[in-house]
């Protein structure tokens, strides 16, 4: 009987280390951040209770609105540019008889191996005016053509990180994440029942028809997962603009994202209370997106 009684406590004993770590490093900070979001801080130690004022100010803060807008634009870029490119690459690699498949897979996936920080540093060099690789190529290839884009000056001086900040971010993220998402899509494509495709083919379905009628429905669960990852990752965008735009939001805050603004508020302006409020609004946005996506997918599966 003693053994049974001891056995009853055994799971809790095994769970205890995790629960202790969880309580100290997750639950307590989470609760503390709720408390912080009702306070205003200034300087290293001054702090005062302001109730919901942080949230009220957020609603009318033009910088926060700009950060939300920029983040949503980036998220749209991820969904409507990055994911189709990743799916396209996966379809390319899934073609039977493709030569050099492994080498191509490595090339597309390679940015993941070097990490986001390194890639952002590389991107900042690529997008440089005058000495940047992109402008040098554009100057060589286009010369004086497409002058209406430039307004004045040569391609060599085109200020990507001033005039096209969001495009620079989206292209850098495309470089970084298209390969990763491609792997997910490729795994899904390789699980599509070949006999279904063959049957559709025999029935006279062309490539496009086969893709929409057979392949896409078959990979929808994985696509849903990739969409969720992309949305969550995009809403949490921080390192890329932080490095690419030199720790700020870029000219006229064109590249300011929600998390960059959170960081600036908490660690540059020094108001951890306001930063906590931004963090909670971001958490709510993430929860809404996740629920929305589950709702859409459930409806589709039903």
């Amino acid at each position, binding site marked *: 009987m003693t053994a049974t009684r001891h056995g009853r406590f055994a799971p809790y004993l095994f769970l205890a280390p995790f629960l202790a770590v969880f309580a100290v490093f997750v639950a307590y900070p989470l609760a503390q951040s709720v408390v912080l979001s009702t306070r*205003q801080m200034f*300087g290293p130690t001054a*702090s*005062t209770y302001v109730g919901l004022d942080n949230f009220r100010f957020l609603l009318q803060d033009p910088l926060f609105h700009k950060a939300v807008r920029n983040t949503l634009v980036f998220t749209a870029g991820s969904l409507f540019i990055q994911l189709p490119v990743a799916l396209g690459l996966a379809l390319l690699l899934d073609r039977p008889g493709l030569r050099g498949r492994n080498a191509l897979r490595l090339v597309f996936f390679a940015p993941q191996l070097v990490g986001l920080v390194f890639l952002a540093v590389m991107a900042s*060099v690529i997008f440089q005016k005058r000495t940047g690789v992109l402008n040098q190529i554009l100057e060589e290839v286009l010369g004086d053509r497409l002058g209406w884009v430039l*307004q004045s000056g040569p391609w060599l001086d085109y200020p990507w990180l*001033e005039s096209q900040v969001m495009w620079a971010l989206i292209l850098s993220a495309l470089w970084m994440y298209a390969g990763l998402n491609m792997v997910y899509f490729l795994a899904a494509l390789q699980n599509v029942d070949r006999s279904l495709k063959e049957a559709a083919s025999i029935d006279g379905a062309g490539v496009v028809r086969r893709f929409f009628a057979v392949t896409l429905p078959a990979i929808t669960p994985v696509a849903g997962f990739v969409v969720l990852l992309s949305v969550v990752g995009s809403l949490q965008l921080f390192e890329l603009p932080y490095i690419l735009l030199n720790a*700020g939001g870029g000219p*006229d805050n064109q590249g300011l994202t929600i998390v960059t603004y959170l960081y600036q508020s908490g660690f540059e302006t020094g108001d951890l209370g306001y930063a906590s409020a931004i963090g909670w609004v971001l958490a709510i946005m993430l929860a809404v997106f996740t629920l929305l996506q589950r709702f859409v997918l459930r409806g589709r599966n039903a």
Partner: protein
Amino acid sequence: MKQQPPHTTTTTRAPRFGAGPGWLSYFSLGGWAVVVVALVSTVLVLLPDDRVEADVTLWTFAPPHARMYRPLLDEWEQDGSQGSVSIETLSLPALERRMLGGFMSGVPVADLIEAERRVASRAFGGPVESVGFLDLTDRLREDGLLEAINESSFGPWTYRGRVFGLPHDVHPVMLCYRADLVEAAGIDVGEIETWDDFARIMRPLMADNDGDGAPDRYLISFWPTYIDNIEPLILQAGDGLFDDDDMVRFATETNARVIATMATWVAGPDRIAADVPEFSAAGNKLKLDGYIVAALMPDWLSNIWRQQLPELSGKLKLMPLPAWEPGGRRTSVWGGTMLGIPKSADNPDELWQYAKRLYLSPELSRSLYTEGDIISPVRAHWDDPIYDTPDEFFGNQPKGRMYIDLAPEVPRRTSSPFNKMALERVQDALIRLSREVESDPGLSGAALRSRALELLREAENEVRARMMRNVIATGAAGGSAP
């Protein structure tokens, strides 16, 4: 051949590590390597620390500072006039985090902290009592240092009328120009008094000799995206960003004229500026190519150019900044460092003696100049003949003396924690104005200045709204320790 029964599986384990004793085969070769590394590193971590604890620890963010201080501190320790000092060099962000972490939570920090201007201002905010550094005002007054040190050098470390740091420098700004190009074109820089003169007299250097439709070079390294260049020029004009009570106030006629002029530097038909970043290989290449004629040059930056661009030795010269109006200020300020004593320090009186001895020593002043091109804020040291030495890098000009002559004119700065925010909003206004000039080249003169003032007003209102919202800063609430 003997066949396997259909439902049996045979697992053939790869031979493990060698053919030695049985326990060796418990792990693979790689597994044993991991075990050995783990054991060795554990032993190394557990070994007793044989470092002798110094009497005083000092944090700095600048390796050159540490290199300058070390011989002096060693000498004083050896002659028995002072205890030992351990210098820890941290990157600026690391120093900022550790300093603020210490001030917020009470975890130990160094006895002396050398902080750059933007980092130090993070320690200011809320009531004076909540500042993490020791208030040095009375000590400075008693020792006569408020008069002995260049007055403007105290600005960034003065919060609500109290001084929290011992100044390290003055950092006057001059204009560095390519003397080889300017003199070859027969231009006399002595005729340049104002920025308008500069643009007019230097313009022949922007000729398109290679016929590609764009100027071969631009007159000045300046771009709205580089915020560090904007502040010195605003400060030079005189109005600054904050009033005497540290309330934001930058929407003035003077500042509007400054940013309107800057906008015409970077956009439209009168463009004279180019984006040549500092501290980068790309920027250095453009400088070597002669893509720009001139650049703002605080004393410390001249040392970086000397180290990174030795090819330009003898081709550069310095001159006072052109003024914004005839008879106006011919210099500005860029950068700054202080030495502070954390409030939590056990022995502030003793640390004050250490700080004074280091920062006020004539030997350090000489090292600052000979190794870092930085002039000391201690006025009594300005008579040192070292400052009159011709500098080969800058066309044998007596560079130190030229900076010192401008030092008393250096504008005073704020220590407001809102300074960065204000400066960013001014930068946004300048960027928007530059775009408008680019798209409407007819926007100039009074209309441009009026638009500049309008944009500055919008920006100022935004900063003011944030400042007013801060109930601790405005005194609407006393604030409390969390």
